C-alpha cells in the first residue's frame, strides 16, 4: 500500500529524499522548486514511512499527508469571468492543490444563467478525463437546483458547491453538495471560509475513495505510478515538455503531455520488466486537453493478469 505525502523543505540535500524514495520502491510524482524551497509529492510504502519521516526531520523539512496526491480534479465554473475568478474558484483550486491534487480550472462557454445554462460535448468529455470534479455555483437555490443538467452526463463523481442549504435529494446527479461556498467577491481567509474549503476537500476525498473502491473490485493491470516511471525512463522527450507536470496521474491511468500524433507510438512501445508493452495493457488515445496522450490502464478482467 502506497501512502501519498508532501515534503516541503530546503533545496539543499533534497536529493537524499528522492534517492530514499527510489530505494524504498516509492514514486516521485511532482517536484516544484521555488527559489530556496522544494515541494515534493511522493508515494511511499506505508511500512517505510518512519524512515522517510526520520530523514525529513534530519533535513528540517516538513512531511504531511496529501490525501489527493496522484489525482486530477476539475474545478468547473459557469464561465471564466470576474464573477467567479479569482474568488472563489481559484481559492478552491489552490486549496485542492495544497492537498496534493492536480487541479484544472474549466470555464464553460455557455454555463451562465438559470434557464440558458448549457454544457457541450467537448466540455463534458474534458471533465470526464478527470478523477472527480467540483461544480461551483452561486447563492440562489433555484439557480443551483436547475443547473443539474450541466453535470448529468458527467461520469466521474461531481461535488457541487453553492451558498444556501439545499437537501441532497434535489440534486440527484451530484455526489455531494457543499453549502456556504457560493459566489463571494473577496479572498477566503476567515476561519469559517477556510473550514468551508476543508469541507470541499473532504467531499472530493470521499468521491475519490469511492472511485478507488470501484477500481479495487477489478484491479488495474499495473499501477499508474509505475506507468509514469516507465514512460519517464523510455520516452526521454517527456522531460523537455514545458508543462509543470509533464505526466499527470489519474486513478486509472495518466495524461502524458506530449503531442499524440508524434509520440503515441513511442508511448505504446514502452516495455515493462515482465515483457509487456504498454500498448497491450492500456488504451492509448488522444486527450481532449490539447490533444495530449491519454493512457487508460485496462483492468485485470480484460488482460487476465496483474504485473
Amino acid at each position: 500500500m502506497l501512502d501519498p505525502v508532501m515534503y516541503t523543505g530546503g533545496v539543499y540535500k533534497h536529493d537524499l529524499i528522492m534517492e530514499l524514495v527510489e530505494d524504498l520502491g516509492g514514486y516521485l510524482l511532482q517536484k516544484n522548486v521555488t527559489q530556496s524551497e522544494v515541494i515534493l509529492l511522493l508515494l511511499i510504502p506505508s511500512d517505510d514511512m518512519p524512515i522517510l519521516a526520520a530523514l525529513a526531520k534530519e533535513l528540517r523539512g516538513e512531511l504531511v499527508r496529501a490525501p489527493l496526491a496522484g489525482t486530477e480534479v476539475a474545478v468547473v465554473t459557469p464561465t471564466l469571468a470576474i464573477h467567479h475568478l479569482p474568488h472563489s474558484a481559484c481559492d478552491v483550486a489552490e486549496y485542492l492543490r495544497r492537498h496534493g491534487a492536480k487541479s484544472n480550472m474549466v470555464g464553460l462557454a455557455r454555463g451562465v444563467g438559470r434557464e440558458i445554462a448549457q454544457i457541450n460535448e467537448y466540455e463534458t468529455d474534458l471533465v470526464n478525463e478527470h478523477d472527480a470534479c467540483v461544480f461551483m455555483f452561486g447563492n440562489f437555490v433555484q439557480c443551483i437546483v436547475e443547473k443539474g443538467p450541466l453535470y448529468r452526463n458527467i461520469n466521474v463523481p461531481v461535488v457541487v458547491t453553492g451558498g444556501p442549504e439545499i437537501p441532497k435529494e434535489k440534486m440527484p446527479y451530484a455526489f455531494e453538495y457543499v453549502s456556504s461556498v457560493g459566489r463571494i467577491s473577496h479572498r477566503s481567509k476567515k476561519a469559517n471560509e477556510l473550514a468551508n474549503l476543508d469541507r470541499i476537500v473532504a467531499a472530493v476525498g470521499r468521491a475519490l475513495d469511492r472511485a478507488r473502491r470501484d477500481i479495487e473490485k477489478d484491479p488495474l493491470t499495473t499501477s499508474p505510478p509505475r506507468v509514469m516511471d516507465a514512460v519517464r525512463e523510455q520516452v526521454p522527450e517527456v522531460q523537455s515538455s514545458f508543462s509543470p507536470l509533464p505526466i499527470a496521474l489519474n486513478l486509472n491511468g495518466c495524461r502524458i503531455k506530449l503531442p499524440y500524433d508524434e509520440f503515441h507510438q513511442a508511448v505504446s512501445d514502452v516495455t515493462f520488466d515482465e515483457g509487456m508493452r504498454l500498448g497491450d495493457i492500456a488504451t492509448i488515445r488522444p486527450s481532449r486537453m490539447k490533444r495530449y496522450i491519454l493512457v487508460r490502464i485496462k483492468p485485470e478482467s480484460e488482460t487476465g493478469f496483474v504485473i
Partner: protein
Amino acid sequence: MDPLEVFKVEAPGEEYGEKKYREILLDILQDLGLVRSIGRLYVYADISKPYFAVFGLFRGALPPLLVRDIGDVAAAGDGFQIKVNDEEHLADLVRVLWERYGRDNVEQPDRDILTVISKDSPADIPVADLDREFRQDLTDALIRIAPEGFRNRMNEMKEDSFFFIAAEETLTSEMIAEVREKIRGMMNA
C-alpha cells in the same frame, strides 16, 4: 455597520441570496471606492422571473478636479510652477496644460514638477470630471454585481439617482414598470 445610509436587499424566497448579495455589493463597491458617493441603495431580485435590479441615490455631484487640488501652484520666473502631489491625474494635467498653453510653454523638469510660461495662474483650470469617472465606474460595478447570466441590461443614470436592471430574457416595459413599483414599495416601507 453599513457605510450607506439606507441599504436594502430583497429577493423573495431566497434568504441566503439576500444576505450574500449584501456582502457582494459592499465588497465590489468598496473595491472600486464608490461607497462614499452613494447615499441609499435598494436591490430587488426575483429569481423566478428572473431579473435583478438596483436603484440608488447619490450623495451629491462631485465637483470637477482643479489643478490646485492635485498640486501646489506657485509663481516662478516667467510663469508658474506646479508641484504635483497626486500622480493619479498627472497625465490628465499635462494634457490640459498642453491644450491651454501649448507644448512649447509647458515643461516637466522633474517627475512631479511642471512649469508653465504664462501670466495667468493655472490653479483654477479643471483637470478631470470626477463625476463622469464615478458614473463610469459605477456602471462597471453594477455589471460585476449582477448575476452573470443576466445579460439583457438597462442602465438609467440621472443627476441624483441611478436605476439598473438586468434579466435573462428580453426586458419588457411591463417588467421594468413592475420592478420600479417594487423598489418604490421598498423605499416607502
